[in-house]
């Protein structure tokens, strides 16, 4: 399984698409950092968890697209033709799917890391600031559920119809345009700009309200469940 994981990482990460996406992410990240984050959000410091979370939520649509693009390596018509060979191998389908999804998740994690490293370099260069510990929670709360949900839902949709994965890429843009309930504010960034103001203290410490934390936990669990469902659906349709 380790070897399959390594080869899948190689397929997903060692190509023009990944490099292109990384370049776009870095350029867009630089734009956000220099135009928005530098001012700080909701009267907090630019390096506050709120400003950092706002930066990540602005990067989320691109990360979502990246994650779904990784899945097209497994769901495209070309990939389905290759499945005629791989399906005849004795490796249990669940283990194989696990190795492949782990590779896609690694790709998503690497892109996320790239965004965070860019922010880190920005903070050190601009403010000489390096208190990373406080930024871990907003990063995890914003990115992990979103990327796992992208993986699970994209995997399932890809098993139903490969083109649905491309349609699904538009979801974060749609969400950004919609007035979401407070609990889903992490999905369109409104949480990071509205929540500190509601706390009514100057430069408040980062807190994740129960409703928002529950919504993110539900999305994380839903992503994992959809992943398992997609894998089951694949085996059923095969038979």
């Amino acid at each position, binding site marked *: *399984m380790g*070897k*399959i994981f390594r*080869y899948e990482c*190689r*397929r997903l990460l*060692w*190509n023009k698409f990944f490099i292109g996406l990384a370049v776009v992410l870095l350029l867009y990240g630089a734009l956000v950092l220099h135009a928005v984050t530098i001012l700080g959000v909701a009267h907090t410091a630019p390096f506050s968890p709120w400003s950092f979370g706002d930066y990540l939520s602005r990067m989320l649509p691109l990360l979502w697209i990246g994650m779904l693009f990784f899945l097209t390596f497994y769901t495209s018509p*070309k*990939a*389905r*033709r*290759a*499945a*005629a*060979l*791989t*399906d*005849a*191998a*004795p*490796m*249990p389908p669940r283990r*194989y799917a696990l190795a492949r999804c782990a590779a896609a998740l690694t790709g998503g994690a690497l892109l996320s890391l790239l965004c965070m490293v860019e922010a880190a370099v920005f903070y050190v260069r601009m403010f000489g600031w390096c208190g990373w510990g406080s930024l871990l929670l907003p990063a995890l709360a914003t990115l992990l559920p979103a990327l796992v949900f992208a993986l699970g839902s994209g995997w399932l949709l890809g098993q139903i119809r490969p083109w649905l994965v491309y349609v699904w890429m538009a979801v974060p843009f749609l969400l950004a345009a919609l007035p979401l309930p407070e609990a889903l504010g992490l999905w369109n960034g409104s949480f990071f700009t509205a929540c500190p103001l509601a706390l009514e203290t100057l430069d408040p410490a980062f807190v994740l309200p129960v409703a928002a934390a529950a919504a993110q936990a539900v999305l994380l669990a839903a992503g994992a469940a959809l992943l398992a469902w997609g894998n089951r659906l694949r085996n059923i349709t*095969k*038979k």
Partner: protein
Amino acid sequence: MEIKIQNVGMTYPSGKQALKGLNLELKSPSLIGLLGPNGAGKSTLMKLLVAALMPTEGRILADGAPLEKAERQLKASLGYLPQDFGLFDELTVTQFLDYMAALKGIKNPKSAIQKTIQAVNLEEKAKSKIRTLSGGQRQRVGIAQALLGDPPFLIFDEPTVGLDPEERIHFRNLFSRTAQERLVLLSTHIIEDVQSVCDQLVVIHHGTILFTGTPEQLIESAAGHVGVFWERDEKQEQGLHITARVNTSQGIRCRAVADKLPPYAQAEEPTLEDAYLYLISREAV
């Protein structure tokens, strides 16, 4: 290795019945040629044998165990080349075979890969990216992944498609050598491929088996049903199926199969192709 197909039928969700009442026993060592026109049900049968599909009727036993229970066991001893397949273009030939070796759980992948690369004459392309290969070379990669790890049961669906004549002969001989101690099922509609190497034939048409036996038996069944005549002598005969028309200085010489040869036709020794066409044409009447 022993495969028993008992009363197998396959109806797709669309309602199309691809196979009906199939009974067949395949036992190693043997090289079995599966012949039939396009749409006869050959590929469906192959998909059932590799557990990519489950039969809607009947059952398949692999070494005595029902396939649905022994799927993993069967796959562990299977090498399969489907008619239509894709490869990972981003990987080199060696990397792709290493990937497939990992999926197949092959213990010593390095030597297994080296051996199959040699067997399919791809040494020069071993380090080339798959996207740079020609159609014939890709087909050889497909054959290589099937041969990987010397599986005791090999299924090849149209393996010589896209190969040049020299390569086709090479692979025919390779399949023949491979079948000396294994069970090899070779599906094709190129009669030449099966004629030269297969010791057993299965002819399938409209989802049913028309013939099982040796190539010699199939040829014998067409004795007295193959004839040649000049085209100018031909009358509108019912049930006469022309299999070849050759332009000569004296006119056009026709070769045909028929249940009853017309009086103007001169009987000829049947070839395997004649016998196959006779069998199929008889079914069509």
